[in-house]
C-alpha cells in the first residue's frame, strides 16, 4: 500500500479522487453502491441562490468517446442545500467541496456568505458553466471579471479554502488562472466542459434542446492534461485536474502534468464504480513503480 493522501491548500484528502460536480448529486444515489468514505472528496452539484429548474430535455447527447450535457444547474437552492444535504454529507468522512454558481457577482457573494458559517471543507466557485445564459462562463472567460469575482467571494470566506473552477473555452487559460490567483483563490480546478454541439441529421435539429452543451469524457482528456500542465506552470496555488479521466493511469498522467487532486465526471456514467477502481489502479501503479507517496508524482513530468 502506497500513501495516496494529498494535501490541497491545507485540506487533507485520504486519496486524490473526487467525483466532479454535477455527476454525483449529493452522493445519496451512489451510497447504495459503495461507502462515500472511500472517496478522497465529493464536489457537490452546483448550487445557486434560489432553486433552478434547469434547461428543457433532452439535456444529454453521446459523442465519440464522450458526451454533451446541458442540465443548466438544476438545484434546490443554497438554503435547502445547507439545511438538508450538507449536514448529511459532512457525516460521511470525506472532504466536501460545495460547488456554487451565480448569475451575478452579488449572488455568488451571498451564497458564499451563507456557506462561510457552515462546516463545509472547501468552496468550489463555478465561473465556467457553459449551460446558463447569465453568469457562468461569462465570468470565467474574462481575466478581469474572474479576478474581481474571486476577490469578492474570498472576502466573505476568510477561513475557507476557495477553489475556482475554470473554463477551457478561452484563448489562454493561464491568464484567467493568474487573475484568480491574484484575486485570492486558494486553488483552481479545471477543466469545466468544452462547448459542443450535435445535430440529428434526420430532423435537422440539435439533439440538445439547449442547442449547445458541455462536452466531457475521454475525448477531452488530452486537452485537459495540456491545460492542467500549462496552468500548474503558471500559478503557485494547487491545481485540481479534471476532464476525461477514466482510469488510474489517466489520473496518474494528469497528476504528473501538475494536478494535486483529480475530479472524475463522465466516467461515472459509464461505470458507477469508476472512482473506486481509479483509486485502486493508482495504488497498484505506485506499488509496481515502488513510489511511496502519490504526492511525489505531482508535476513530475519532465518536458522535452
Amino acid at each position, binding site marked *: 500500500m502506497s500513501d495516496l493522501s494529498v494535501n490541497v491548500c491545507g485540506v487533507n484528502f485520504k486519496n486524490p479522487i473526487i467525483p466532479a460536480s454535477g455527476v454525483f448529486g449529493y452522493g445519496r444515489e*451512489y451510497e*447504495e453502491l459503495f461507502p462515500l468514505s472511500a472517496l478522497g472528496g465529493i464536489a457537490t452539484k452546483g448550487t445557486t441562490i434560489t432553486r433552478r429548474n434547469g434547461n428543457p430535455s433532452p439535456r*444529454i447527447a453521446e459523442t465519440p468517446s464522450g458526451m454533451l*450535457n446541458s442540465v443548466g444547474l438544476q438545484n434546490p437552492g443554497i438554503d435547502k442545500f445547507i439545511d438538508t444535504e450538507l449536514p448529511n454529507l459532512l457525516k460521511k468522512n470525506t472532504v466536501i467541496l460545495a460547488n456554487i454558481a451565480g448569475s451575478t457577482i452579488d449572488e455568488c457573494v451571498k451564497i458564499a456568505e451563507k456557506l462561510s458559517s457552515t462546516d463545509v471543507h472547501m468552496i468550489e466557485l463555478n465561473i465556467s458553466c457553459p449551460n446558463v445564459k447569465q453568469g457562468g462562463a461569462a465570468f470565467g472567460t474574462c481575466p478581469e471579471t474572474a479576478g474581481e469575482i474571486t476577490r469578492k467571494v474570498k472576502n466573505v470566506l476568510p477561513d475557507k479554502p476557495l477553489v475556482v473552477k475554470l473554463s477551457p473555452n478561452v484563448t489562454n487559460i493561464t491568464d484567467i488562472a493568474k487573475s484568480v490567483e491574484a484575486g485570492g483563490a486558494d486553488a483552481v480546478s479545471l477543466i469545466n466542459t468544452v462547448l459542443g454541439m450535435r445535430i440529428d441529421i434526420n430532423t435537422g435539429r440539435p439533439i440538445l434542446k439547449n442547442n449547445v452543451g458541455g462536452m466531457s469524457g475521454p475525448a477531452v482528456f488530452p486537452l485537459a492534461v495540456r491545460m492542467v500542465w500549462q496552468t500548474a506552470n503558471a500559478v503557485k496555488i494547487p491545481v485540481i485536474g479534471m476532464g476525461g479521466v477514466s482510469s488510474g493511469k489517466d489520473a496518474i498522467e494528469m497528476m504528473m502534468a501538475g494536478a494535486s487532486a483529480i475530479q472524475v465526471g463522465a466516467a461515472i456514467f459509464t*461505470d458507477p464504480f469508476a472512482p473506486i477502481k481509479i483509486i485502486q489502479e493508482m495504488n497498484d501503479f505506485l506499488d509496481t513503480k515502488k513510489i511511496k507517496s502519490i504526492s511525489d508524482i505531482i508535476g513530475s513530468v519532465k518536458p522535452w
Partner: protein
Amino acid sequence: MKYTQGKYIIKNKSAIAKNTYSYTVRCPEVADIAQPGQFAHIRVDGFTLRRPVSICEIDKKCGTIRIVFEIRGNGTEELSKLNEGSLIDMLAPLGHGFTLNSKFKKVILIGGGIGTPPMLSLAQYYGEKSVAITGFRGAGSVILQEDFKNSGAENIVCTDDGSYGIHGFVTQPFGDILKKGGIDAVYACGPMPMLKKISEMSKENNIANCEISLEERMGCGIGACLVCACKTKKNDEEYFAHVCKEGPVFNAEEVIW
C-alpha cells in the same frame, strides 16, 4: 431504492422482430427485487453512456429478467451483438415502477411499439384481470403476442397499416373498453402522442389510476445527474422530475404535456 451493478450471463437470445432482440439474463439479486416498470441501465463497450432498457419479464424463481430492445442507433446495434453465454453489464433494477394492486378487478395495459415489453410483466401479474392492447407499425414489428396470450390477459393487437390485427391505433379499442366501464387502472408505455391521448381519455372517463412510463435521454440512471428531466406538477407547482428515479412510471395527472 435498492440496485446493484454487475456483469450477468445471457441465458437466451432471440431476434423477435426486425431489429428487435430479446435477452434473458441470469441475475438473481436483480430479479429478486425488480418490479414491473423498472429498467436496467446497460453498458455497451466503446460507449460513454449506458442504454436504459425496460424490464419485460421478471422470473424470481429462475433468478432471471428478460429485456427486449430495438436497434435505434450505434449503441443498441453494438448491444445486439452480444450472444448467449456473453456477459452483460447492468445497473439494475432502476427507477420507480408501476403501482400494483391485487384488489383491482379489471385493468387495461397499453403498449405502443417498443413500449410494449414492460406491459408483459404487468399482464403476468394481473393475468385474466387484464386487457392488453398493443399497437405496432405493421405485421413485421409485432412482438410478444404468444407471451401475452400465455399470461391470461385478453389480447388486442392493432397495426397502423392493418397488416395484423385491428387496422388503426390503440386508442380505438381503448375507447370502446372505457365506454363499458368498470376499469380500475390503466397502464401505458409508448410514443408520447399515444401516452398523451391515453391520459386525456382516462381523465375524461374518471380513471383514478392511470400510470404511464416515459422515456428520456439519460445519464447516470439513478437520479444523481439530473439529465433526464420531464415537466411535472407537484403540489400545483411546475417541477422538473427525473425519468430515471421519480419515473419512468408517473401518474398521468402529474405530467405536463
